[in-house]
């Protein structure tokens, strides 16, 4: 057990880095800040790898290890603890988080050079890694929620990192508030679990739930769907996806780390973690699959029309997470986790490479103002190409092919799958290839439209190369069944997760499906080449027609969800707060006060010093009194 005792140090290291930077950062030099920021993550990654190797070679009993630091609080038998849980799933997530974070931190030391918020940037980034590690290592849902909100906070802080721009602040606020809707659903889900089980320990719930809840009961339904609410917000799925494209206001390393590789997949992690609840609520699991399928299509279409290179990537992230949700929805737990890992590599890479391009173009985000960078920036071009290949799932040679085709296969072949789900994923694969290579061709081919402002140096290039290689070869740890029995990844995950239940007669169709999706991906690349490089005028002409313009705008604005929410939510709330700024309740009390003053005025009139008035008053009073005495 020796080495496992060090588990708590993995999240503690980034926390320490954050504390040092938060307290002393303002007085430190850039170099020292960079070293602290990177070293804390690097050491955590190293420790993760050591523990991970240990875990693979000599796994602990039952494939898990848990470490309790202290009891958080204890009320009436409900006592969540600050406690970590390591099993194959959390190990994979921890590895990806620390490893990719380390590369991105390293990259950032160069990317953020000269920014006045340098210490703040690394402090927030370290805090983020701490929160994310807490999220994936948490042994109970309350601690997970701490990490969950922590990553949301860091996302808010980093989207609004350049806070002097009102737009960035708005985007940051939007991200925080939209995800808060989901988080509120999630915490209500936690209340429900506390009420029924009096614990939030994940393993306890997973073992108790099947005996306490019948499959398909309404409690199971509510618990599953409320947690799903949290996952939808954080992972930017329908209908809470609107914040992610705007989140691109943050510095590019932030988009790579938080809004592509790690945080946005927290929802996938949550659902995979709580898989038992979803098996008890098949309706909700179907909803997960449908949301995944719908999201991947909507985001895919939206990505087609973007001009900002980061927004293309943002929509593609939403779309790829849609694939993961699709996998979760059909019960392909291991496939979802596998795609998460591969996606973290290639999407992190794409963002980092895009960041290098943006630096070179002096903060220009519009792809159509770039062009022809292939020759000038070969390292960036080739790594970007590898990443794009993985994203578009180019057959055989890219990692994305192995992870995505697994999902597509299960979407059809799983007992919970269907042709419709597969068809959505299939169309999505085509869209992915088109928008990805549209981006590649527009940015790196054609003629150069702008001078290069700043060339990347080694701290940028090395992370790109490492991730580039991974985007190609990481898929080989999970070869399709039909080709042979080499599946170490799913074997590992399936130690703690149920295997996919295949529908009857589906085993043989895998190769056929792979050929079809491989062809559609290549077709997508060809079409992108045809319409973006060879004859862009065709597309241009289509866009100038009324219909073309309408479609283009509709896609460009992400199916107008923002407009919708603006009308049904934002405007009413703002209106309501404006009309009653001065609190109508106060008006009521004021009216009482004014009534008092009025009466005072009236009665003080009667005290006017005329004797005749007083006599009159007395007589009148006596008359009234006498009447009452005599007649009542």
């Amino acid at each position, binding site marked *: 057990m020796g080495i496992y005792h060090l588990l708590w140090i993995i999240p503690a290291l980034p926390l320490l880095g954050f504390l040092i930077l938060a307290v002393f950062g303002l007085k430190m030099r850039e170099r020292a800040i960079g070293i602290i920021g990177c070293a804390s993550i690097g050491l955590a990654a190293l420790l993760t790898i050591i523990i991970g190797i240990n875990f693979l070679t000599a796994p602990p009993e039952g494939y898990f290890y848990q470490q309790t630091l202290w009891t958080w*609080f204890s009320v*009436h038998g409900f006592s969540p603890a600050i406690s970590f849980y390591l099993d194959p799933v959390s190990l994979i997530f921890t590895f990806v988080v620390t490893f990719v974070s380390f590369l991105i931190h390293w990259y950032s030391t160069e990317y953020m050079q000269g920014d006045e918020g340098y210490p703040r940037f690394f402090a927030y980034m370290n805090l983020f890694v701490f929160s994310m590690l807490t999220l994936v290592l948490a042994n109970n849902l309350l601690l997970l929620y701490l990490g969950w909100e922590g990553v949301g*906070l860091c996302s808010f802080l980093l989207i*609004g990192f350049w*806070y002097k*721009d009102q737009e960035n602040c708005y985007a940051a606020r939007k991200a925080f508030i939209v995800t808060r809707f989901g988080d509120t659903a999630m*915490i209500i889900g936690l209340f429900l679990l*506390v009420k029924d089980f009096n614990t939030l320990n994940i393993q306890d719930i997973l073992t108790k739930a099947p005996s306490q809840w019948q499959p398909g009961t309404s409690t199971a339904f509510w618990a599953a769907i409320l947690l799903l609410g949290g996952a939808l917000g954080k992972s930017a799925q329908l209908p809470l996806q609107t914040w992610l494209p705007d989140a691109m206001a943050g510095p590019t390393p932030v988009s790579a780390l938080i809004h592509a590789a790690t945080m946005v997949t927290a929802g996938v992690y949550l659902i995979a973690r709580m898989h038992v609840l979803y098996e008890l609520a098949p309706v909700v699991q179907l909803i997960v699959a449908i949301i995944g399928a719908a999201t991947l299509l909507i985001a895919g279409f939206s990505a087609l029309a973007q001009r900002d290179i980061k927004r293309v990537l943002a929509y593609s992230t939403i779309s790829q997470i849609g694939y993961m949700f699709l996998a979760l929805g059909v019960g392909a737990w291991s496939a979802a986790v596998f795609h998460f890992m591969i996606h973290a590599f290639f999407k992190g890479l794409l963002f980092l490479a895009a960041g290098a391009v943006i630096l070179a173009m002096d903060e220009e985000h519009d792809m159509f103002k770039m062009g022809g960078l292939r020759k000038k920036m070969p390292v960036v071009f080739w790594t970007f190409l590898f990443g794009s290949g993985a994203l578009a799932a180019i057959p055989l040679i890219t990692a994305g092919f192995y992870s995505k085709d697994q999902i597509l296969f299960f979407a059809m072949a799983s007992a919970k799958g269907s042709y419709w789900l597969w068809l959505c994923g299939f169309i999505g694969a085509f869209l992915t290839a088109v928008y990805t290579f549209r981006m590649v061709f527009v940015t790196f081919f054609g003629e150069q439209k702008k001078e290069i402002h700043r060339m990347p140096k080694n701290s940028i290039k090395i992370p790109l190369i490492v991730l580039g290689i991974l985007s190609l070869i990481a898929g080989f740890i999970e070869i399709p069944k039909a080709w042979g029995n080499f599946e170490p990844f799913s074997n590992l995950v399936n130690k703690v997760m149920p295997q996919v239940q295949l529908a009857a007669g589906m085993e043989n169709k895998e190769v056929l499906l792979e050929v079809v999706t491989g062809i559609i991906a290549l077709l997508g690349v060809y079409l992108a080449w045809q319409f973006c490089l060879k004859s862009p005028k065709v597309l241009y002409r289509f866009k100038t027609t009324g219909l073309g313009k309408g479609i283009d705008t509709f896609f460009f604005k992400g199916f107008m969800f923002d407009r919708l929410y603006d009308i049904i939510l934002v405007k009413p709330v703002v209106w309501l707060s404006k009309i009653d700024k001065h609190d109508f*309740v106060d008006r009521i009390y004021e009216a009482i006060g004014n009534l008092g003053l009025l009466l005072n005025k009236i009665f003080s009139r009667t005290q006017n010093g005329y004797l005749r008035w007083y006599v009159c008053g007395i007589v009148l009073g006596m008359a009234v009194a006498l009447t009452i005495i005599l007649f009542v």
Partner: protein
Amino acid sequence: MILLDLILILLFGGFVSWLISKWNQLAGRIIALITVIIDLIITMIIWISHAPTVSLLNKGPWISDFNHRWIPQLGVSFHLALDGLSLVMTALTLFVGALSIVASWKEVREKSGFFHFNTLWLLAGIVGVFLSMDLFLFYLFWELMLVPMFFILSIWGYENRKYASIKFFLFTQISGLLMLLAILGLYFIHGNATGTYTFDYFALLGTSSWGPLGFWLMCGFLIAFLVKLPAVPFHSWLPDAYVQSPTAGSVILAGLMTKTAAYGLLRFVLPLFPRSAHAIAPLMLLLGVIGILYGAKMAYAQTDLKRLVAFSSLSHMGFILVGVFSFTALAYQGTLMEMVTHGISISALFIIAGAIHERTKDREMGMMGNFWEQMPRMGGITLIFVLASLGLPGLGNFIAEFLVLGGAFQAHALWGVLAAIGLVGSMIYSLVILQRIFQGESRKEWKLADFSIRELIVMACFIIVIFWLGFFPQTILHTTQPVFDHIEQQVDIHAIQQGGAS
């Protein structure tokens, strides 16, 4: 005796500080501060040495008791007692009180001696409220709080202080009168039934039924507490009083005095009138939820910084109301955590608002923006308390809200869900504080100095405590556990139906 000392030290220290100030202002300030710190140390010693429970009276988990005959002809005794609940609240009072004195070190320049006299007497009144176990004495301290607060508000307040102080006085005085009537009602009903006329809390607690008047007597207490808390629709004094007070006044008013009302609900309304409390619970839950949502909505609409914070306080008080009237173990503990953590976070926010006002001579957020550039430390610290206010896990306020809402959900799922919607609201208005003041563009050229060492020390104390409570809330929950176990027994609906207390 030690309980009496706690109060006497404050009263005496207030006098000395006033007298010394005539000769040297700084010395007066230091004496006032030292007095409160001594008191705080005594309280902490009691806490550490007696934690968690020593049952002295066999009537619940009491740690310390002081009972002295005072006006025996009327059945009035000078009865102070301390249990976990009073202990935590006393510690909070002295902690926040000490820091509020440091925070207004430079703000109050005129008549600073009289100011500190009032502050210390105010603290004495609050501590007295938390310790009194004789209803007559309780009422006395309740009123004692009012007078110094009125002076602080009307002498050192801002531009509209006259209006605010009179409004504050009227609201609390009228509701206090209702409570006095209720106290007298208890006194006579108990006297008629048993033959012994007494104001003693424990004696009255033994009464099994208050007869047909029981419900109305409870309302007397309830309204006094609802006004002080405040709850919608009795909140209209709050924005004016909070906004017009000098910093120390706002801090004590929002951070401490409102907690006396929450304390009153837990200490008097529930145990004395368990059945009536159950009867009125649905209405109280409704008021609580309305308070949470309406307060959040009002806070969002404000452009005056202090007014925004004031309405945020209204919203958070809704959680207390929901917590008290959910009658579950989680919710009780959550209420207590809300009292403590809100006491800390709202105090810190008002001190920050005061610090901004000192620098800009303005509270209007429309003219502010981009303050982070010049005051990164203040920005970072504000961020922490904004996060506390929106209930981010890791800070004490989260534990409070989680327990209250979780407890409410156990009792009535619907109310729990409605109250939880407030979490979205608190996010929206809290971010306004950060973004309008510290981020974005500034309309005006500001020259601002970041937090001084003195202010940083004050803030560091608040920060340490709020994080401590976020990760080790058991420190407090452990101390109050026996108290709430006891209250839970007294208020348990099944026991009441069998036994038959009113």
